[in-house]
């Protein structure tokens, strides 16, 4: 077996050295009734070539985003990632290293985490950021738990513009933890009155902008109302590129900012692994979940970095920890920070303008299709269109015509008749005029 360095001779010699003639003598503590004699009913080992052929066969059944006009978003976005990013994250020293608990031999990981935290803090307009979470949805759920700790209350208010799966994750964890959640109804028209839902028992208000339907939300009045009642504003985003162009949540009064960082540096990967971003105010750092990297000096006075404030974490605090989290998003976080470094602030702003322009063009093209209307009055690179028939069937018909034309709202908010005609469409720098024309032509055909 190509991954196992011991030869049969080695094994025999080592068994002799250890003092057994049969390896099973070492497994003697396994209860006899549970010991497996033969092999399990699974295929035997395969060559690299055979595995490759088998995996490629399954991969070939899927339609890759780059191979078609592609407008699917709703929390994960197709962007171009520079070739150098994927090359660098495959450096052995990054790829095959563990969590940097031994800082003398992991300064590489620690320094990029420190750089990552600085970038995320700047992007979100916040004072501090952690070294990443699993993804945007789990970051949101953790932010709610953190708000409960900070306010010593346990009632969260979730906007109807929050990504429905983010809402499910936060609801599930909160309910299991014995906390209360008030989730407002799905809000495609931006009509909800979230201010009315905030009271003196509220620990936090969770608002997404651009929201699930693509609409930009003015966070300032929500922050003001929340603060007046002693509650926190948790601002959520699923498209981090938007922060290149729109006012960051930190400048609008958010207390915790969480979101999905996949768009920068990371591919679609059918939903994971992604990278959750988490930022807050300096005064809350001891209530933050997840890893934090901090600057210090070594015994010779040289600048260096370490994981810090670990007394919040499970391996020290056990049942008193702020979170049970043990992992961050390591390589995805590295991919994010490399791509962000290549872009810089000005590059991200340009990329964001290209994305916004692409969406503005797409809106114009789709509005010319008979029966199609756009709900949004504001948007960044994604918006909601209303079709004359259920969107779920339409996207499958579009797929038959070689266009991946968005996400039916009903896939994430099933069982609500008024949402069935709604389709979320996303645009980015990868869409060409030809892609948009193909989308409009196919849609016209399907709706005819």
């Amino acid at each position: 077996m190509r991954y196992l360095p011991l030869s049969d001779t080695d094994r025999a010699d080592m068994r002799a050295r250890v003092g057994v003639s049969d390896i099973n003598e070492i497994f003697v503590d396994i209860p006899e009734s549970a010991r497996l004699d033969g092999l399990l009913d699974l295929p035997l080992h395969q060559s690299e070539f055979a595995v490759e052929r088998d995996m490629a066969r399954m991969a070939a059944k899927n339609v890759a985003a780059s191979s078609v006009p592609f407008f699917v978003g709703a929390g994960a976005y197709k962007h171009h990632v520079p070739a150098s990013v994927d090359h660098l994250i495959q450096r052995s020293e990054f790829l095959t290293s563990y969590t940097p608990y031994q800082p003398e031999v992991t300064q590489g990981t620690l320094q990029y985490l420190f750089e990552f935290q600085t970038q995320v803090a700047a992007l979100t307009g916040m004072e501090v950021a952690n070294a990443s979470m699993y993804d945007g949805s789990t970051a949101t759920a953790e932010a709610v738990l953190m708000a409960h700790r900070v306010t010593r209350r346990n009632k969260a208010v979730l906007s109807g513009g929050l990504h429905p799966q983010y809402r499910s994750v936060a609801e599930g964890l909160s309910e299991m933890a014995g906390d209360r959640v008030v989730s407002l109804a799905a809000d495609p028209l931006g009509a909800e009155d979230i201010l009315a839902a905030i009271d003196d028992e509220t620990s936090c208000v969770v608002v997404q902008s651009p929201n699930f339907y693509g609409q930009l939300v003015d966070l300032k009045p929500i922050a003001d109302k929340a603060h007046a009642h002693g509650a926190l504003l948790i601002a959520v985003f699923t498209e981090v590129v938007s922060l290149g162009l729109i006012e960051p949540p930190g400048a609008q009064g958010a207390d915790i900012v969480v979101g999905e960082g996949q768009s920068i540096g990371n591919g679609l990967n059918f939903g994971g692994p992604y990278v959750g971003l988490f930022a807050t105010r300096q005064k809350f750092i001891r209530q933050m979940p997840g890893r934090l990297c901090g600057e210090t000096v070594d015994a010779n006075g040289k600048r260096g970095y370490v994981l810090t404030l670990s007394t919040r974490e499970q391996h020290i605090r056990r049942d008193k920890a702020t979170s049970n989290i043990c992992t961050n998003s390591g390589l995805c976080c590295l991919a994010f920070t490399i791509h962000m470094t290549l872009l810089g602030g000005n590059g991200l702003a340009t990329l964001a303008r290209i994305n916004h322009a692409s969406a503005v063009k797409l809106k114009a093209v789709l509005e010319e299709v008979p029966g199609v209307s756009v709900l949004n009055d504001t948007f960044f690179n994604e918006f909601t269109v209303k079709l004359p028939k259920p969107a779920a069937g339409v996207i499958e018909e579009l797929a038959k015509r070689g266009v991946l034309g968005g996400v039916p709202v009903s896939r994430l908010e099933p069982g609500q008749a008024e949402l069935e005609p709604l389709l979320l469409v996303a645009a980015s720098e990868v869409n060409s005029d030809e892609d948009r024309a193909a989308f409009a032509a196919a849609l016209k055909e399907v709706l005819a």
Partner: protein
Amino acid sequence: MSMNTQGRPSAPTEAGGTAAHETFTGNKALQMEEALIFEIGRNDVCGVDLEEPEDFTPALGGHARRAELDLPALTEPEAMRHYVRLSSKNYAIDAGLYPLGSCTMKHNPRLNEKMARLPGFADVHPLQPRSTVTGAVEMIAELAHWLVTLTGMEAVAMSPKAGAHGELCGMMAIKAAHTAAGRDPKVVLVPESAHGTNPATAALLGYKVVSIEAREDGTVDTRAVQDRIAEHAGNIAGIMLTNPNTCGLFERDIIAIAEAIHAADGYFYCDGANFNAIVGKARPGDLGVDAMHINLHKTFSTPHGGGGPGSGPVVLSERLAPFAPLPFLRKGANGPEWIESAAELLDGEQPFGRMTAFHGQMGMYVRALAYMKSHGADGLRQASEDAVLNANYVRVGLEDLMSLPFGSRWCMHEVLFDDSFLKDTGVTTLDFAKAMIDEGYHPMTMYFPLVVHGAMLIEPTESESRAALDLFIATMRDLVMSAQRGETGRFKGAPFHAPRARLDETRAARKPVLKWERPAASEVQPQAAE
């Protein structure tokens, strides 16, 4: 004797001058100092070519960013150099033996990386039309089949994003099952030797954590479990037990413990972090386990990546399978079906909710399945046997000099020493570990598990050759004898040859500096004229 391109001979005997001097740059040949991107980047360069869009009418309402985003950029050659230099400051499996106990730092096959990058897996959106992702669902279903077969369990919840997330998922399933039965027990039993994530997870869900002490041989005593159950009669939600445990020992009373928990209407959560020891040797389903997470980044070789991303699918018993969170796999008449929402449920399916948006760690699934297919049923069993043989080989090679807290007995995939062999030497476990760095080894897991004083937990994995183990053993023996001879200079202040000496963690925590701040103009020191 080697010749350079001018044909001039170069020989070590010609070296003159002193070896130890401070270099002008602070670099030491291949060991380069590297500034932060904020110190070397500029706001007027870009590492990506982007064309400004033609004039258009924005639709941002009043939400446009007011202040420019002040983050510098590096061009591609500068970025390559920055990150390559950073990478050279990291220890890695590919560079050397990485004996972190409980972390399973095995080889990460590069075929897995290549497979994960196939466009049909890497460039597929989680919400694109279902008809365009049938191969993705097929791949997940095949991985699920391997996982339930290897563990002897009924079903698997694929979506948890890491081991601790898997623990949370398993415990949420247990809580949901109790709720569905109209029960609300409050106590979770956790042995003292458990990973910190176990009590943290139980506490997160509002459970009271009741500790179970280990008996003298390092394993959990059925009687201690029964005593705790009796003390909290009628109030037991379950037990969280790691097996093999964090002392590297197989819990031999596991079936009796499972029966005791089941008799008390509790569930048995098994922390699967150490599954690498027993793949193909025993199935958790035959041991009475109700839920167990599998760290794909440990047992099934997906890269640790400096701390993530992980992946922690949770296998479930028949009793817990109905509570698996969305999305889950249903065994349909025409093959596996991927169930995403409450609208698709059949009678009896009671998912407790959702652990994450989308479908979990697809990129990690692909790597793990490529690993499994490469090994096959035979290779996976061989890998576990080799991992266990290697650990015992290290144990036998060191047990006369280092101290085994539970006596000389078989260990599983990792061997636990305590620090009594360092008594009166003036060298601590930490000093000893840091001296290993100078010898070119990453330290073992230290001060964990907590049940042993000055714990040193060594897990060599199956990826090490006999020669590599022999050198490691010889090095460890040399270090032990050196400590016992009183040569504290080699340990105090170690490492001496790493990119950094010991770092001041107290200072970092006392006044946390968590990001780079632009120095105020008054603080910028003029460059001293040389």
